[in-house]
C-alpha cells in the first residue's frame, strides 16, 4: 500500500534507511527510517505527531509512553526499526472525533494535569496499566504509575481520574 513516507531529513538518508511498516492509530504506514531513530523521534520529528512528549529521552520520565500492541512502553527507549509490523497507539488515536476516550474525559473532569506536558504519557500509561490487570488498589495504582513523572504534582487528581475511568476501561483499549 502507498503510505506516508517519513520526512527525508538527510540528503543521503536513502543509504542507511530500513523500510518498516507500522500501524499507527489504525493507519498503515510504510516508513524508511534510519537505524538510530527512536520510535519517539519517528513520531515527533519525522511524522509531526507531537502528542507524544519527550521529557528526558532516557527512559526516566514516562512522557513518551505509547501503547505498542496494547502494551505501554517508553517510546524513547525503542528504536523504530525494532517495531516493524507493530500496532502503535498514541494519544492522538484515543478519541473518536470529539468523543473523548473515558480516560481522557476523566483526566479533564478530575483536573488531572496542570501544564499538560506529562498528560499524554499518563493517559497511555494508565490505559496500559489497566489492561495489565495488576492495579487493584490505590497504592498499587500509585506504584504502577510511578514511571510517569508529573512535575506539576497533579498526582492525587491523576489517581482520581484513573479510578473514575477504570470501570469504562476494563476491556483495555476501547474499540
Amino acid at each position, binding site marked *: 500500500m502507498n503510505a506516508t513516507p517519513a520526512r527525508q*531529513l*538527510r*540528503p*543521503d538518508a536513502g543509504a542507511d534507511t530500513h523500510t518498516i511498516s507500522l500501524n499507527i492509530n489504525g493507519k498503515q504506514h510504510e516508513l524508511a527510517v*534510519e537505524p*538510530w531513530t527512536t520510535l519517539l*523521534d519517528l513520531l*515527533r*520529528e519525522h511524522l*509531526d*505527531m*507531537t*502528542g*507524544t*512528549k*519527550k*521529557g*528526558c529521552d*532516557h527512559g*526516566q*520520565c514516562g*512522557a513518551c509512553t505509547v501503547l505498542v500492541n496494547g502494551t505501554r512502553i517508553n517510546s524513547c527507549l525503542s528504536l523504530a526499526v525494532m517495531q516493524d509490523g507493530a500496532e502503535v497507539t*498514541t*494519544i*492522538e488515536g*484515543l*478519541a473518536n472525533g470529539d468523543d*473523548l476516550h473515558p480516560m*481522557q*474525559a476523566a*483526566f*479533564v*473532569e478530575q*483536573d488531572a*494535569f*496542570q*501544564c*499538560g*506536558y*506529562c*498528560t*499524554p504519557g499518563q*493517559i497511555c500509561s494508565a490505559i496500559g496499566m489497566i489492561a495489565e490487570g495488576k492495579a487493584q488498589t490505590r497504592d498499587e*495504582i*500509585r*506504584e504502577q*504509575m*510511578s*514511571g510517569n*513523572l*508529573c*512535575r*506539576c*504534582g*497533579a*498526582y*492525587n*487528581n*491523576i*489517581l482520581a481520574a484513573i479510578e473514575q475511568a477504570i470501570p469504562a476501561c476494563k476491556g483495555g483499549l476501547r474499540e
Partner: protein
Amino acid sequence: MTAYLGKAVSRVDGPLKVTGKALYAGEFGTADLCTGYVVNSSIAKGRILSIDTQAALSVPGVLDVITHENRPEIASYNENYTDMDAADGKHFRPLYNDRILFNMQPVALVVAESFEVARYAASLIRVDYEAEPHQADLYAQRSNAHKAPTPMPPDRGDADSAWANAPVKIEAEYHSPAEFHNPMEMHASTVIYSTDGKLTVHDKTQGVQNSAQFISNIFGLPDGDVRVVTPFVGGAFGSGLRPQYQLVLATMAALKLKRSVRLVLSREQMFSFGHRPETIQHFRLACDREGRLVSTIHEVIGETSSFEDFTEMVVVWSASLYQCPNLRLDYKLAPLDLYTPLDMRAPGAVLGMYALESAMDELAYAANIDPLEFRIRNFTDIDPASNKPYSSKELLECYRQGAERFGWSKRSQEPRSMRDGKQLVGWGMATGVWEAMQNPASAKAVINIDGSLVVSSATADIGTGTYTVMTQIAAEVFGLPLEQVTFKLGDSILPKAPLEGGSFTVSSVGSAVKQACETLQQQLLDQAKEEDQSPFSNLELDGVVFEDGEIYIKAAPSERVKIADLLKKGGTPSMEASATASPKKERDDYTTATHSAVFVEVKVDEDFGTIQVSRMVSAIAAGRVLSLKPGRNQILGGMVWGIGMAMQEEGMLDKDLARWMNHNIAEYHFPVNADVHDLDVIFVEEHDEVVNPLGAKGIGEIGIVGVAAAIANAVYHATGKRVRDLPITLDKVFE
C-alpha cells in the same frame, strides 16, 4: 450572584491537552525547518583556546556549526541583555567570546537537517580550554560574601542583647541545597524565518513580550520584526521568567542561515542554567516565659554567580509574620563559578520560611509550648515591619480549621511519643506566607455579532489555569455561557501583560480582563442610550444586567435589547474595548499577603529509617479563589513540591569540577506518584476589598511555603532528631 467565579469549572484547554493537540514551543514546524543541538563547556572557568568543528561539519546533513568565532553580529552592551527578571550585574551573553564563566556553558551550536544528525555531529566537536581555578564551595566562600543589593526591612530594637538576655532561646543553622526547576517540557525555541526577514518565535517562556524584547535588543531587530507566540508551556515554575540561552542560539542560527530553526535542550542541559540557590541560614530566636517572641536574628548567605547578584525575598518574612520587638536581619551573597540562580516557585519565601518555621518549632520546644499554640500567641494583624495593617489575614482561621481537620488536638508534645506499630509517627506544622501583589496589566475585549466574546492579554498559562480563570471572569462579567467566551494569551502582539509569575496573574491580568469587559459594556450601554426614547437613557452600568447576549434594566427586566441588534444598528460586526488595570493607591496603606497553615504527619520506619509523608492538610487564606479546580490543583502541586524540597531534591555538585553530577531526572529526585499520599486543601474564607477589584490574592506560590518546615518538624516529633540540612534523607535521620 455568581455563575462561574469560585466554581469548579473544568479547564477550557483540557480537551486540547488530553488529546495531544496542545502545541508546545518545540513542536511547531514548517517545511524548511532545521534542528540545532548545543555543545556545552566541560570546564567551569577559563578560556576557549580553539574549537575544532571539522569533523562535525563533514557529517552529511550538517548545515553549520556556530561558535563565538563565526557567529553573526550581536549586541555587546550589557543593557541589551537585560530582561524583565534580570539579576543585577553583567548578564550572560551566549557565544559572545572565549570566556568560560560556568560549567556546561554553551560554546557551540550545531545546525543540521535532522535532530539525530545534529546531536551526533555535536559529539564530534573538540574544544581546547585554558582552565583557571574556580570556586564552587559555598561554605568556603562564606567569608567572601558581600551584602545583597536589595532593600531590607529596618532592624528593630537591640536584637543581640535582647537575645542574650532572654530566658528562652535557640540558635541554629539551616542549610538547603541548589534545586532545579525541571519542568517536564525542556526549554525549547522554534524560530520560524519568513522571507521578509521577520521572525515568529515559539519560545518556552513565562513572558512572550519579555522574550520578544530580549532578542530584538540582542540582534538589533526593529520592533515588529519579532513576534513570540507560545500558547502552551509545559511547566516552568520560574525557569521561564528569564529568556534562556536556547532562545538566543536558535535566533542566531535562523538569522545566519536564513532558515527556520528548532532548538530543544536535553534534560541534561536543563541543569546548565538557573536554579534555586544553595543557602545557609543562621537563626537566633528568643521568647519570654509566656512564649512571646522577644528577639529575631536571621542571617542568610545565598549563592550567586561571578557575574550577577541574584537576590530574592528570603529574610523579609521574619520581619513581618509575627510580632517581635527586636529584630536584626542580614542577607549576603557569595559568588560561585556557577550559572546565576533563578527564581523558583515561591523564591526566597520557601527558604526563609523553612528556617523561620523550623526555628519557631525549636523555640516552642525550648519553651515547652505546643507549636501551634506558640504561633497563635505571636500572631499579629499589624505588619511590624511597616506598621501597616494587613489588608486581610485570616491566618488564625487557617490554624483553627487546619488543626481541626488534621486532628491536632490529639497530638502529644513529646518526641517519639506516637507510633503505629513499627512506625514512629510525627506530627508537625508550620505557617506559610507569600505576597499578594498586583502589577499593571492590559487586556482587550471584543464582542462579536454572533454573540461570542474574545478577550486577550499577552500573559501565559504554565499550567496555572490562566485560560480557564480569565474565561470565567469574562463570562461572569458579561453573563455569557463559558462556551461563548474565548481567552487568548501567549502572543507578544496582544495587550501588555507582566511576566506570568509571583502569584500575581489573576490579580493583575484578571483585573484588566474585568475592566476591559466593563469598559466594553459601558460602550454598549452608551450605544443603547442613543436610540430614540431609549429606556436605558438615564441608567448607569449598575442599573442594567448583561445576560445571554442581552442587556436589560435591573428594575424592569422586560426592557431589554440584544447586543447583536445594537451592533447591527451601529453597522459593525463587532465592538471592542481595551483597558489597563493598575494597583489602587489604597494598597499602599496596607500590607497584602496570602497565608497558610500546614499540618503534616510523617511515618518513620524504626528499623529502616524510611520516611513517608502519610498525611498533609493545608489551610489557605488567599482572598477569593476564582477557579476552584485549577486553584486546588495549584495548592496540591505546591504541597508535592514541598515534599520534594523536604525529602528529595538536591543538585549535587562535584566541587572539583563545579559541575552538577546528578543532571538527569533519575538521579535528581522529585516526587513520583507513590511518594504522595493523603493531601487535603482547605480554602479559608477571606474577604479583601483592598488587594484588587476581584478580591483574589493569587495562589501559585502559597501551597509550597512552609511545607518543608512542617515536614522537618514532624520528623523531629517522630524521631527526636532535628535535621537542619535539606533534603531530609534517612541517613541523616539515623546518623
